[in-house]
């Protein structure tokens, strides 16, 4: 598998994600925060990358850009060799819907929907018929070990179970990239490890995974670790 190369993006077309001198600047009045400062990186398909760094170093900002929830202030972002800069809101939504799955620290399930309906949500926006959505929800609930909880509401589940539902939901649209921002941040270490094992299984199934974490024990599950400080990529560690 080709290595992850920081700063100097390779000419190699075998990249699923490529940042070229990306900047993200938040302006608040005349005050500006440089959340990302000249970040260049390339990620090849099927990688499992951990992003580490101090609080405020720009990890979440990086994830938001990767997930097409926001656009860079400067620089280029190529997702599967397509420049994201020129896309409008609808096109970005479509990209998120078809190519990306999100996992959040706070699970972010919709409280009034059942487990089944939460997992089905991407299928709903993909306009799949309800039979297909149902089948997919069942399949994924089985995968994350929650097939007996399909009609429960998120509030009736433990944190670990909720995060498993979130993973199932992130997988529902069969995305190429899974973005996880501190997926175990709200969980105890044993539950955290279960979640990590699930992610590893997803990765083994071919998903490219980018995960933010503070814990080096969890980062060790990844194939490479990207360290950030002050909006810059510090260094990249290869190997498990």
């Amino acid at each position, binding site marked *: 598998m080709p290595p992850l190369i920081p700063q100097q993006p390779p000419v190699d077309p075998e990249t699923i994600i490529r940042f070229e001198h990306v900047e993200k600047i938040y302006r608040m009045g005349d005050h500006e925060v440089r959340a990302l400062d000249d970040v260049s990186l390339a990620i090849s398909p099927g990688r499992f990358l951990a992003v580490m760094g101090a609080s405020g170093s720009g990890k979440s900002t990086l994830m938001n850009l990767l997930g097409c929830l926001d656009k860079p202030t400067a620089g280029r972002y190529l997702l599967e060799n397509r420049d994201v800069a020129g896309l409008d809101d*609808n096109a970005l939504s*479509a990209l*998120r819907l*078809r190519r990306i799955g999100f996992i959040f620290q706070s699970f972010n399930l919709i409280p009034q929907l059942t487990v089944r309906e939460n997992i089905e949500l991407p299928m709903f926006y993909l306009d799949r018929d309800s039979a297909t959505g149902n089948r997919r929800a069942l399949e994924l609930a089985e995968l994350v070990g929650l097939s007996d909880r399909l009609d429960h509401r998120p509030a009736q589940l433990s944190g670990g179970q909720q995060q498993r539902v979130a993973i199932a939901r992130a997988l529902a649209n069969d995305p190429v990239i899974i973005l996880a921002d501190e997926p175990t941040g709200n969980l105890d270490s044993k539950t955290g490890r279960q979640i990590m094992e699930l992610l590893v299984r997803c990765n083994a199934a071919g998903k490219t995974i980018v995960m933010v974490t503070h814990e080096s024990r969890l980062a060790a599950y990844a194939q490479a670790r990207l360290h950030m400080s002050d909006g810059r990529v510090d260094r990249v560690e290869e190997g498990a």
Partner: protein
Amino acid sequence: MWKTHGWRDVRLGIKDLMLHKLRSLLTMLGVIFGVASVIAMLAVGEGASRQALDQIRRLGSRNIILTSVKPVADEGGQPNRNSFMSVYGLLEDDFLRIRETIAWIQRVVPVRLIRKMAALGERSLELRVVGTTPDWFTLVRRPVIAGRILGPNDDDQSNMVCILTERGARRLLATKSVLGQKIRLGGSVFEVIGIVASAEAGGAVQAPDQNVDVYIPLSASLSRYGRRITYRTSGTRELEQVELHQILVEVTEEQYVEEVARALEAMLQRFHKKTDVKISIPLTLLRQAEATKRTFNIVLGSIAGISLLVGGIGIMNIMLASVTERTREIGIRRAIGARRGQIVMQFLIETVVLSGLGGVIGIGVGFLIPLAISRLSGLPTQVPLYGLALSFGISVLIGIVFGLYPAIRAANLHPIDALRHE
């Protein structure tokens, strides 16, 4: 690109509303009462005006009714020779003059009314004896049940014949065969030649006791009973001389009614020194009633509009609160890949379901209120069909108008900000 999910969206919307049943119900109350009051007011207004219009219409929109009225005592300056006798009203000459000189007239019917005791064997009954011409029966559209109505000869020859109404006949003659019977009306004997149907209740050409009318030729009335009529009112005797109590004028076309009325007025002014004739024009009354109804509808419409506006603002208020409360959910949906338009649709469907349901319940309540009003007060009510369509349409429109702003606000949230919302 703009695919909709149809029923699934609606089902999802209903589900979200069901989660907050009390709040949804309270939100709907504004629309429910708005719509209910629209329908109730329309029903009462429609009922009342329809009753008025029906009454007027039964008088005939092409008719003009001249009625003799006793002039005010000090008016006219020409004191009667006999101080106990008041002479006033329409004359047979008026009838002839109208018939001969005024254009656009289909038919003219003179009416003379005298109360007489009617006697047949042992039975007796006070009847109103209507002296008139054959045209009467055409004008008031009274179908013949048995025998025949007055013919031209009856009037020309002052034939002693009479026609009873169905009910009068039944009360007077009971089971006996009616036609050919002799009946005593006051001092004269008449032969019953026909029976006509009784008028429906409220048929307003005549006084209310027309169901016990008996019709005789005008010429017979004048020759047999003279031109003087004696009234007994509360013990005192009052003598009046009235030749004709009414003249009914039917105009050929509705458009000439007002012109004919003006001509009649001019004629009466020339030949009557006193103001002893009243002209009533059903068409004018009809127009006035219609204008009143329109004004009424505008006033009611404005009141109903205000209550619906209040209902709409209530919906908008709740939906704005709901958007704030569900900011995070919006962020999640956007992160998953929902387009702005789909978020707008989601919230819009919720408000439209809310207001549409409120409209339906309001229509139900709106049906019950007029029913209760009719039951309790006896006022006629009628829920107009257009009112149903109108108020349902308006409530759905309210959902769209007042839901659009919160929905667009929800969709325009930046997904990251929305996700970060606590």
